[in-house]
């Protein structure tokens, strides 16, 4: 765990941060050096991404699960093996998205814990400095979050039409796991947007937010989200975790 000093959430020197971010963004092309430092970055994958490694695994497990599901029949008739491999890949993907790629690629994270009375408390974290987030990362993240759900829905339709009942296990697992992440990040990004709006409507640094493009980032994400409005998430949810 990091010390409070390291937190991106500290807001005491907010204005300075935004000024710095704004000027550095103008001075140099964003994310110039970060992509060169990792192995995946050196390979030239995900150009413009700040976290090519995270982006790779964000896409890799999803793609592998779909490919194994589609093409394993050509190589083996062992249902158990294929099923286990698929489910493990989907579980790894769920873990990667929930715990790693979300926080690195779009600065969001959702988790929940159980209170004394058995009620579930959702906690949504979001990085305050959205200028740290690369455009490529954001597109890859949200695209790869939604696309597999669509693909697996199609598989569901095909499996039902072909009466391949046993494969419904894999499809159900895929839809449950990707659905959980979609709901989690949808709520999370909605709350992040709300936090920014509260901040902006407070009259502080509203213009600075537009300057560094946070407004665009957040509304872009938000427009994706607005269709599926879940339970109300108060802005105090994060604080309640103390």
């Amino acid at each position, binding site marked *: *765990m*990091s010390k*409070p000093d*390291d*937190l*991106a*959430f*500290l*807001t*005491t020197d907010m204005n300075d941060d935004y000024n710095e971010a704004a000027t550095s963004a103008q001075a140099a092309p964003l994310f110039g050096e970060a992509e060169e430092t990792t192995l995946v970055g050196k390979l030239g994958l995900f150009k413009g991404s700040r976290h090519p490694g995270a982006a790779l695994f964000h896409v890799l497990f999803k793609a592998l699960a779909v490919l194994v599901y589609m093409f394993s029949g050509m190589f083996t008739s062992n*249902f*158990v093996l294929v*099923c*286990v491999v698929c*489910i*493990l890949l989907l*579980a790894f993907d769920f*873990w990667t998205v929930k*715990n*790693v790629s979300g*926080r690195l690629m779009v*600065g969001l*994270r959702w*988790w929940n*814990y*159980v209170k004394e*009375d*058995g*009620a*579930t408390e959702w906690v949504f*974290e*979001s*990085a305050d400095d959205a200028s740290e987030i690369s455009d490529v990362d954001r597109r890859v993240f949200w695209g790869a979050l939604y696309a597999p759900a669509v693909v697996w829905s199609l598989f569901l339709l095909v499996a039902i039409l072909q009466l391949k009942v*046993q494969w419904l*296990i894999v499809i159900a697992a895929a839809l449950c796991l990707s659905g959980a992440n979609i709901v989690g990040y949808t709520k999370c990004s909605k709350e992040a947007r709300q*936090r920014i709006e*509260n*901040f902006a409507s*407070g009259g502080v640094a509203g213009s600075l937010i537009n300057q560094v493009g946070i407004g665009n980032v957040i509304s872009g994400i938000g427009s994706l989200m607005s269709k599926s409005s879940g339970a109300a998430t108060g*802005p105090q949810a*994060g*604080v309640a*975790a*103390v």
Partner: protein
Amino acid sequence: MFEPGRDLVETTLDEPVRETIMRDLREVGAKLKLVILPRVSQEGVLDRLKEWDLWGPLAVCLALSIVLSVSAPEAQRALVFAAVFVVVWVGAAIVTLNAQLLGGRISFFQSVCILGYSIFPLNVGALLCLVLHPVTKSLLLRALVVGVCFAWSTRVSVVFFGEIIEAKRRALAIYPVFGFYSFIAWMILIQK
């Protein structure tokens, strides 16, 4: 400041990936240990199990499905695997919903987590039966192994469900827990 309490919140946004993995693995290991090792006091056990995860249940469920499908006849392997997998998850969900409807103060996943981890002793039993099979065909011995594992499996869950449900409805909540584990135990017992 727009959120004064914010800097007191333990954040996990910027931790290294290795730390994230290790924390989760340690959690799974600790919970498994809690379920396996008998304790005098259940107090700390239940508190620990409140931080749920589904990794343990997934691993336990896959392992059980694989062990039972290995011992099944060739033609029925897929069916057995699928059946065990579905029984574990759907069964856990039904037991949980039942407890919730009876007024239990428990989150859905928390309960599924505990039920899932508690299957582990039955896993050991299934593996033992598989190993014992070439040595002895004794049904009595197998029944003994499964019986001990069944008791071991139900212990944690029964205590947990007993605690979250008020006394007069307790039997109604615990009864399906027994049903759940006996069904799994029965599937282990009838394996060839």
